[in-house]
């Protein structure tokens, strides 16, 4: 193609190229600079309020320190104390583990409810709203409501149990070593249930209805369809619930604080409330820091394990492709 018009084209391109100024920075550098510019405010906040305190916390956990006193290196002293000399630490750790029953219980209930309100029943939006409602409520309010419900003199639960003839004398649930933890767990389940249901419902609605139709034609009965289609395709949603549940178990401070403040004794103290007491009641910030590090490591391990079990796709919404 060696025609005159081709040469003309070449010349035109050259002129255009000359006219365009070479930018100061390369395209890639400019792009990167832009990305960092957008990230900067978030990163600053993150470092100021998360990373720095976390690092300070780790430093503190290897020190002796009280407000107004100089800081001294303590080695593993704080960790030795919690591991070998503090029986309460192990009790609250056990409580925290038991409190995690909230996760399977609320996931199973939420799954059942989600399956129910996913049906074409009349008023299903009302049911959905009612079940979701506790979640956005302030936890402190929830705690207070439940404290009244469990109350042995005026509580609705005792009243109901007595009118049904199930008990003869009222039970002070929240003051009882036998019932307090279970009572707190029930309240926590009630609170988080609606949130889990919405997550699972979203997962359910992301499953293409044609899959169920194909399975029906293929010969799968309702329970086959549940085990072989619904459940595997809900996996990301369910694991998202697990991770959120783990987080909640380590951070349910406000619910415990308002309902029992850890009592009776330490029967309902969780790691988080015990840490709070160590720091702000006993002013043992160094010891609290060590326990916080333990909690952080435990939490990280559980979260990683969950995500590993989920195949790395916890919370992934799009399952089609």
């Amino acid at each position, binding site marked *: 193609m060696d025609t005159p018009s081709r040469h003309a084209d070449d010349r035109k391109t050259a002129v255009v190229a000359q006219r365009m100024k070479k930018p100061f920075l390369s395209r890639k550098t400019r792009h990167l600079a832009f990305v960092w510019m957008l990230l900067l405010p978030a990163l600053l906040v993150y470092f100021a309020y998360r990373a720095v305190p976390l690092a300070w916390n780790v430093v503190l956990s290897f020190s002796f320190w009280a407000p107004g006193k100089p800081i001294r290196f303590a080695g593993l002293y704080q960790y030795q104390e919690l591991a070998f000399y503090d029986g309460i630490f192990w009790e609250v750790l056990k409580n925290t583990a038991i409190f995690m029953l909230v996760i399977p219980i609320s996931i199973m209930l939420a799954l059942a409810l989600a399956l129910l309100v996913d049906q074409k029943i009349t008023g299903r939006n009302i049911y959905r709203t009612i079940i979701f409602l506790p979640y956005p409520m302030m936890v402190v309010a929830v705690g207070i409501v439940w404290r009244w419900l469990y109350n042995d003199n005026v509580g609705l639960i005792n009243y109901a149990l007595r009118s049904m003839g199930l008990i003869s004398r009222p039970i002070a649930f929240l003051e009882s070593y036998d019932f307090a933890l279970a009572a707190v767990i029930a309240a926590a389940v009630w609170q988080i249930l609606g949130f889990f249901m919405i997550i699972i419902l979203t997962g359910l609605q992301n499953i*293409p209805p*044609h*899959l169920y*139709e*194909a*399975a*029906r*034609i*293929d*010969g*799968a*009965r309702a329970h*086959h369809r549940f085990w*072989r*289609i619904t459940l*595997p*395709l809900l996996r990301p949603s369910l694991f998202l619930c697990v991770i959120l549940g783990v987080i909640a178990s380590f951070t349910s401070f406000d619910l415990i604080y308002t309902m029992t403040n850890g009592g009776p004794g330490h029967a309902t103290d969780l790691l988080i409330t015990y840490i709070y007491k160590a720091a702000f009641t006993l002013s043992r910030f160094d010891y609290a820091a060590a326990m916080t590090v333990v909690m952080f490591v435990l939490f990280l391990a559980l979260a990683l394990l969950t995500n590993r079990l989920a195949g790395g796709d916890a919370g992934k919404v799009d*399952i*089609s*492709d």
Partner: protein
Amino acid sequence: MATVEFSSLVKKYGPLEVVHSIDLAIRDGEFVVLVGPSGCGKSTCLRMLAGLEEISGGKILIDGQIVNEIEPRDRNIAMVFQDYALYPHMSVYENMAFSLQYRGFNKKEIKTRVAAAATTLGLTDLLDRRPKQLSGGQRQRVAMGRAIVRDPQVFLFDEPLSNLDAKLRGSMRIEIKKLHRRLGVTTVYVTHDQVEAMTLADRVVVMNNGRIEQVGTPEQVYHHPETLFVASFIGSPTMNLVPAEHDGTLLRLNDGSVLIRQPENKAAQPGAKMFGVRPEDVTVAEGPPPEGHSEVEVVVDVIEALGADTLVFATVAGSPFAARVPPATRLQPGASARLRFPNDKTHLFDADTGKALA
């Protein structure tokens, strides 16, 4: 293998009736295509046959047995969906084995059957893949594989090719046809694409607005459309349809010009008619018209050269009128021309009822 029969089949969604009393008998081993515009009720009929939709009235029989109350899994049918409906969390092998697991096959039998189906469809190398790792055409094949492993009595297809590009659609069409030749299974195939309908079907069922307009071989619906709707739906470009008036002996266009002198016994009744002739039966007139031919005077609007032939789009008496002519035409846009067609290739419809007049 089985026959399929719709008897006064009705479907209502609440008060809205979308399928109005359809009767259809499908023979054993026949390939029947339901074709019609979007929303005409094709899928609804197919889904009632599959057992996925409740039947509001009438009956469906498979192999002589009423299946109205029978669960999909017990109808011994297989269905290929438009979006394939492959199980995303299962491999190709598991997708194909799924139905066999619920039909009492042991592991070894399942393996043999899946392997055989995979060979038929060229899926052998893909058995370990997940659906998302497949191309559209491969997914389509897996969906078909899932259907054939079971040796069902009836195959149902709901627009299985509409998510593929034109080229792939052409080759998959041929494969479906081959598969049907080989397996001989009664097949009901839904499409809105008339080319698919014409090429695949033993018989075509043209539907419109929840009713059957015509049932016939591709030749019958093409050459002898029974209604105006079928005439306009089948064929590309569509049949030229021009309003005309019959005065007992002559058929005249709106502008008064005579269209046909001897309306060959068609439409003895005078009145408003629709006159039809296919573009492929129209030629450019040269010399005096031979016996049994008629001519119209048109104004040429557009000429489209397709390579093998040329489409001429013109206007006659205010109506569009097209002709498919050999590539070397001397017609010019804007000029007038005389177009000619044999009288025995023309169609006449009652303007009010839309029914063909024999």
